Each structure stands twice: as C-alpha cells, then as structure tokens.
C-alpha cells in the first residue's frame, strides 16, 4: 500500500503548495487543468485498460456541467446541491453502462465503431445545447450562478478541485492493485478467452465505461462551479478530442499520466498562445512525436527514467490461499445434441448432428479436416449460434446462450490455437483463470483474491515436466506455441469445470509432451469424475484415452462407439484411416 500512498501524498503536497508559491491566479489556472485532467484520467483508465477509446467524453462532462449550472442557479443550498450531484452521477453511470453494454453485446471488439458512436452522440449533444436556447442559453451559454457552496473560484474552490483530484487518483491507484484491474486489461488482450472464463465482457466494458463517464461528469460539475458559465463547447466534439489528447500525451497507462498531460498541455498552450503565433504547429509536432516515439506518453518516459534510479524490487509472492469452491452449475450430466444444424452463409457446417455422451468419461472426436469438429464445440459454448436443433447438458438447454455463460453451467474450453492473454505474464494469466467461476463481484475488489490457488492448478504447476513454473513472470508473448498449450490447459482446468472441451490439446507438442498432456487429461477426468471431450487426430492417443469415440464426417455423425468398434467400422475406414505421430 505504501507505493500508493507515496505518489498520492506527493501529489497532494504539490497541489497544496501551488497557491502558496505561485499565487491565486496560477492556482485558478491549474484548477481548470486539473478539472480537464480528471476527465482525462477517466479516459485513460478506460482506453489504457480495455482498449475502448471514447471520442465523446464531453457528453458526460457537459451534461453534468449544465445540470450543475441549473442546480446552482436554483440556489437550493449546499445539501440539496450535493444530493442532486450524486443523483446526476448515478444517472450518468446507468446511462453509460446501458449504452456500452448494449452496443458491445455479442461483439468482440473495441474497435472504432463504439468510438464513432460516442462521437456522434457528443455532436448531437453539442447541437442541442447550442440551439435549445430556453434550456441551455444557447451559444452564449448559461451563466449567472454562484459556485458550489459559494466558494471563491480564485480561492476556496481550488481546494475542492484538489480534493477531487486526489480522491480520483487515490481511487484509480487502488483499483490498479485490485483483481478488477486484471479483468479490465484482459478485455483488451483477448476478449473471447475472457468470455470462456465466464466473464461477460460487454458488461465489463460497460462498467469501465460507466466509471469513466462518472469521472467525466464529476469533472463537468466542478467545471460549471469553477467557471460560472457553461457553453455548448463544454459538451462538444473539440473538448472530447482534447481530453483524449491529454490522456495520450500524458500517458494513458498511468494514473497520473492524464493529469500531467492536462497541466503540461494546458500550461504550454496558454503560455505559447500569446507569445508564439504558430503555437498550434508546435503543439501538433510535439503531439505527433509523442504518438510515434513515446506511445505511453510523458508518464511512461518519467517512469522509465525513475526506474533507472530505482529498479522495480522483486516482490515476494504472497502465500497462497485456498481458493473457494468453484460454482459449478451442472454436475455429472450427459451432453446431448439433438438434430443440430449449423450454416454460415451458404456453407452448411453441421448437418443434423445427434448424439448423447455418457455423464462421465473421455469422449474423443475424430474425423477428416472440415468435418465440423471444432464447430461442434463452438456450438456448445455458444460461440456459434445453431441454425436449428438443440443442445442440452442434463436437463438444461444450453444452445443460444452467449459464450460467457458456458462456464457457469460447467463447461470449460480450450481452443484449437492456444488462446491466452498475450501481453500479460504467465502468473497474471493464471490469476484470471483462478477467478473464473469463483470470484463474486466483491472478490474482484479484494487483493487477497490474487493469492487464490486450487489443488488441481497447484498440482499441475508443480509437475516436474510442465514448463510453466519457471516462466511465471514472463510475458506470454514470447512463450513458444507448445508452452502456450500447457498454459491454456492450466487456465481451463483452473475453474474445475465438470465438462471439459479440449480442441487438439497436443497439436504442436513433441511426442514426450504429447504423452504428458494425455496423462494430465486422464488424471483430470479421474479426479473430477466429469466429462472430457477431446478433438484429436493421433489414433494412438485416441486409443489410449477414449471411453467413446465420436466420428464426424461432412457435418454428420458417422459413428459413435468404443474405440475398437469405431476402428472396425467399414464406413469409418472409408473416410478416415487414422495414423500416429
């Protein structure tokens, strides 16, 4: 916690000294920059972690500023003002959450579309603010009100801004050390994987967006009170873009980055504007240089300079805590396909697949390339929507559910090409996996959740031949493909799903590694007594592990029986002879 308190108390000290050292007017100036900086901190948090870039953050800033102005005009007293302010923040949060969650539902991207929607929204808001003269005062703005609590904008109100700045920074610093931070970053990293770990990513993005909107609204309320006037520019496109620039220049990956950006950019443009006619040119060049040479912004430059003096100390890992039991919905149930059909465009991929697995054991799925094996698994987890038919696990129908609900009913999934959180370390990957199907909302805000360990995962890591233990602090990016296979397997079983779907777990593994993987799978099934479905081409593996074998061909079930019977089935022999590595 010391590493949180140090920068925050430093920030507080610097901000408190400003009026003493530079006078009230400088404090007034810095106050405005800090207000923008707070809003930019929200943008940095959203953009830096989830990869979602809001281009219309002035919507929340401006609307909150207008509502604050209306409230202050009514002169209902401080208590009423504050109560209304709290109400506004809640409304903004609900609106932002609903907007983002609705738009991101069923969409695994953080790309430009959402950004452009926020841009269009802020343009609508600016247009309405500029023309609804009766409500907003139009272009000339809404003015003629005192600041919150009648504080002097050149004096007392500065301390209100400082309080808000420090409070928001403290909150962000604390959030950065909590498990929820890992989840937010995982969204940008690999959204489909996070869904298969049971997290509703659209809601995660919605929540982070709502959080950033609340911060922007808070800043907007301060702005109205500080300026004594609110004009359409406060809810405009230009201000939205400016806030993004502050976050980018200051550094979106660091809590204080956007604040630094706001103060430096604000100060530099105020100084230059009146002394250098081509100040915009200078700012533009500086800005391009930051994007090209220091994508992490000024904060990252400062931090790497600081790290040269004080390298990161090796943190001693905290002792493991036994993780709570996973919330497994269905235990020991049969998986049943009933006339499942699936088409994508004109291509028919599954063509009436029906079978019913036993409730426990290992089922191998074999078949020629393009038979529909992976697609069949995709329909189970909801990554593909059925054209017709149904899939049930026990008595529960599970098709047409989004992928993030699969783990909730007990289905864990390892994908064909190893899918992990690439720009995170191995241990961060494992921490996220440990939260899957275990962590409640509150656990995401408890640091002790990081220490969770379950026995199956611990056993796996301690296995002498599994390569992960030495690689815990390494970023996954540079791990060889085969090691990623083990990592993804570990992440999948961490949630201890009673139904485990493994898509070619031995692809890219050497013969010895293949043997290791098959042992792990067999042990897992034996320990949990659950159901494992494996797609595999290597017949020696299939023979060694399978209780039953499902043969798919051209999107249909060719055979579903024990290994020996399948092998002697003449229909199967025609299409699939099989072989070994």
């Amino acid at each position: 916690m010391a590493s949180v308190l140090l920068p925050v108390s430093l920030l507080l000290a610097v901000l408190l000294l400003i009026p003493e050292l530079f006078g009230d007017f400088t404090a007034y100036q810095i106050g405005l920059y800090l207000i923008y900086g707070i809003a930019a901190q929200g943008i940095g948090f959203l953009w830096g972690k989830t990869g979602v870039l809001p281009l219309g953050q002035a919507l929340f800033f401006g609307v909150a500023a207008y509502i604050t102005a209306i409230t202050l005009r009514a002169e209902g007293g401080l208590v009423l003002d504050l109560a209304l302010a709290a109400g506004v923040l809640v409304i903004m949060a609900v609106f932002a959450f609903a907007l983002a969650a609705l738009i991101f539902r069923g969409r695994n991207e953080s790309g430009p579309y959402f950004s452009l929607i926020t841009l269009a929204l802020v343009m609508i808001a600016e247009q309405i603010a500029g023309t609804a003269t009766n409500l907003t005062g139009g272009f000339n703005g809404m003015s003629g009100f005192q600041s919150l609590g009648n504080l002097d904008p050149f004096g007392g109100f500065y301390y209100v801004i400082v309080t808000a700045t420090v409070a928001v920074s403290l909150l962000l610093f604390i959030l950065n050390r909590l498990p929820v931070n890992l989840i937010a970053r995982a969204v940008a990293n690999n959204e489909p994987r996070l869904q298969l770990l049971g997290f509703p990513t659209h809601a995660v993005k919605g929540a982070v967006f709502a959080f950033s909107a609340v911060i922007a609204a808070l800043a907007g309320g301060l702005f109205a009170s500080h300026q004594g006037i609110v004009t359409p520019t406060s809810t405009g496109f230009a201000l939205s873009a400016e806030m993004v620039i502050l976050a980018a220049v200051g550094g979106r990956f660091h809590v204080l980055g956007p604040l630094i950006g706001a103060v430096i950019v604000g100060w530099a443009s105020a100084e230059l504007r009146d002394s250098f006619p081509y100040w915009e040119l200078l700012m533009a060049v500086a800005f391009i240089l930051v994007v090209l040479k220091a994508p992490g912004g000024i904060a990252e430059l400062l931090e790497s300079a600081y790290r040269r003096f004080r390298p990161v100390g090796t943190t001693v890992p905290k002792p493991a805590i036994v993780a709570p039991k996973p919330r497994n919905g269905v235990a020991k149930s049969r998986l049943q396909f009933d006339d499942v059909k699936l088409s994508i465009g004109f291509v028919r991929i599954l063509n009436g697949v029906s079978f019913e697995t036993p409730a426990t054991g290992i089922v191998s799925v074999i078949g020629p390339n393009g038979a529909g094996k992976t697609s069949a698994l995709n329909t189970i987890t909801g990554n593909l929507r059925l054209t017709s038919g149904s899939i049930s696990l026990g008595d529960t129908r599970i098709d047409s559910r989004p992928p993030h609900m699969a783990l909730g009913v007990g289905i864990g999934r390892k994908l064909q090409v190893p899918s992990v959180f690439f720009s995170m370390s191995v241990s961060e990957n494992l921490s996220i996996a440990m939260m899957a199907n275990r962590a409640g909302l509150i656990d995401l805000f408890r640091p002790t959740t990081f220490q969770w360990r379950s026995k199956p995962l611990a056993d796996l890591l301690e296995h002498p031949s599994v390569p992960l233990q030495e690689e815990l602090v390494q970023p996954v990016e540079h791990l060889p493909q085969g090691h990623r296979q083990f990592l993804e397997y570990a992440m999948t079983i961490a949630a201890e799903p009673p139904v485990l779907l493994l898509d070619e777990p031995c692809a890219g593994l050497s013969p010895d590694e293949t043997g290791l993987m098959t042992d792990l799978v067999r042990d897992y099934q034996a320990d949990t007594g659950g159901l494992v479905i494996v797609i595999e081409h290597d017949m020696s593996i299939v023979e060694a592990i399978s209780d039953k074998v499902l043969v798919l061909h051209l999107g249909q079930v060719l055979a579903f029986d024990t290994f020996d019977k399948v092998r002697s089935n003449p229909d199967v022999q025609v299409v699939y002879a099989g072989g070994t590595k």
Partner: protein
Amino acid sequence: MLKSTTKLLASAAMALTLGTVSATADIKVGVLVPDSGPAGLFGPSTRNSAKLAAEKINASGGINGEQIELVFADVGVPPAEATQAALRLWKGEGAQAFVGMHDSAVREALIGRFGGQVPYVYTPVYEGNSCADGLYITGETPSQQLAPVIPHLAEKEGVSKWYLIGHDYNWPRDTNALAKGYIADAGGEVVGEEYVPFTVAEFDSSLQRIKESGADAVLITLVGGGSVGFNVSFAGFGLDERAIRLGTLIEENTLAGIGADNADRLFSSSGYFASIETEGAASFAADYSAAYGADAPALNGLGQSAYEGLMLLAALANKAGSLDVAAMDAAAEGTTWTTPRGDNTLTGHHMAQTIYLADGSGGAFNIVASFDNVASSEACSN
C-alpha cells in the same frame, strides 16, 4: 458573510498586484483578440487597429494624463480558456481595463469573472441586450443595422418578400426577431425563415426553398465560412438575378471569399467599411497603411471595432476622471467621441453611430447609403 470575506480577500489580492504594476506609471489595457479559431482571421487587423488607437490616445495625452500600454491575449478559444487568458492580463499583468473583440459566449464568461470590477468595452457586432456594471458596447446591434436599412432597400430596390437565413444560434435568431418588425413596417412580408447548424456546409436545399418562396430579398445572418459557402452557391444557382441579399456580418474578407462573380447585389450593413470616404475614415485608412504597409491585413468592421473600443475607453475614462467602474458608470451616459465611424454617443452603455449600407457587386464594397447617429434599441436601461 462568506461571500464578503472572499470579496475582501480578492480585492486585497488585486490591490497587491496593482501595487506592483503601478511602478511603471503606465496604464495597461488588456486587448482581447481572436488569434485562434474560426474568428482568427480577424486577429491581425484587430491588433493593428488597437495599436493605432493606443498611439492616438497617447499622442493626445493618454488617459487622465497617463500613457497607456496595450497587452494582448488570444481569446479565439472556448470560453474557459479565453477567460483564463483575460484573467492573466488582469490578475497577472495588472491590466486595468479591457477591450474585447470576440464571440458572445466569451463575453458572458468574462462578465461573470470580471464581476464589474474592471471596465470592459465589447466591440464587435452582436445581438444586443447585454448589460452589466462596467460593460460598454461599441458594436452594432441588429436594430442599428436593420431599422434604417430595410425600409431603404424596400424603397430603392423595390423588394418586399424577405427570406431570413442564419446559423442556428442566438445572434441570428435575435436579429431576425427584430427584422420581422422592420419588414412589416416597411410593408414587406417574411416568406421564409431558416436556421442551419454550424456543421452544415451544403446549402442547396435552402437555396431551393428560397427559390420556391419567391423571395426578392434575403437577409443573411450566417457567419464566416458558412456565409461564404452560402453566397457562392447562391450565385451559382443563378439566384442573384432573382433576389438581393443583405448581410449584417459580411465584411471585406468574407466578400473576398465569396468572389466578384458571386457578389452581385449583395448588400452589407455595418458601422464601418474600409471604403468609407469621410475625412475621419480616410485618415484612419491612411494611418493604417502607413503603419503596416500595403500588404497589411485588410481593414474591416470587426478589426476596426477595436479602435472604436479603445477610443471610447479613453473618452469615458477621461470624462469620469478615473478607471473606477462606479465613476465611469456614473459618467457614461451621453459621452461623445469621434472616430472613423463618425460622431458617436454612448446611450444605455451602447454606441449610437453612423450606419453604412454598401453594395458588394463587382467584389468590392461601394457605400450606397449612410444613416447618421443610429441608436440601438437593444441598449441598457441604466
């Protein structure tokens, strides 16, 4: 209670900063000009005009015997940043009075922050009815630009069917509200009224409506680039043969952008044009080109307004004997002074002035009529 304490503190702080500044024995006047943003076009001519005014004032003895020094700030930015720039001059550099040429949103913000503690002259064309302690206005208001001009055009050009088009904000709406009365009084009718967002750059549907309305006169309250785009298309569609145009914010730069081909029967109403041939205006234009050369930024009503503003400030402060707002407010009514625009009188904190009507046909403004001592009906009631 709290309020009075903070006020006390603020004035104490101000006294402190003023104390340090008065050592130079000059009076600093803050001049707020747009160097950035859409109005940035008018920054250079505004600065130049202000400097000429300062020279003139200092040559004739300054303000109450003290020489003045101009300090500039860029206010072509959103109100929050513009206010900061102005406050820097006030609190940081000790400016004791302000002259501003900027948009109305910035004015409203400044009124709030100045709080009547410092004299402030606002100079550009605007919608009227802005009143505050220590605020004096030299810019033309809609009544001044339209009350004499609409009947004149109705008579001389024989127009009666007016179409009103403007950008969708306060100034055009307020202007047109008044224009409707003048048009009715002149026996005309309004055949259409339309407001377009700042973000719209295509005017064909508006032009089509104008054509269908049968209008023979169009009152344009579009600003800046929108006005240029509209007028270019207007002529492109051949509408210039069907209707005259009257703009209340079409100055020399805008006319240049519209181009000679597209300016037939395009009238503009303003307190100043570079082509005014009165003695005062001619000598101002001569001084301007002597000081800044032939290639200097073109003179125009907005830029020149800063000259008016400084001259008013000097006249008023000299009359009041100080730059104290209360004293100036007391002395304000009836102050008279002479400038390139002619003989001006301050009534209700607004400037009664000569209004000129110019025809832009052929790409240059020809003064076709002038109306002396036009008072504003949107002035303050003291």
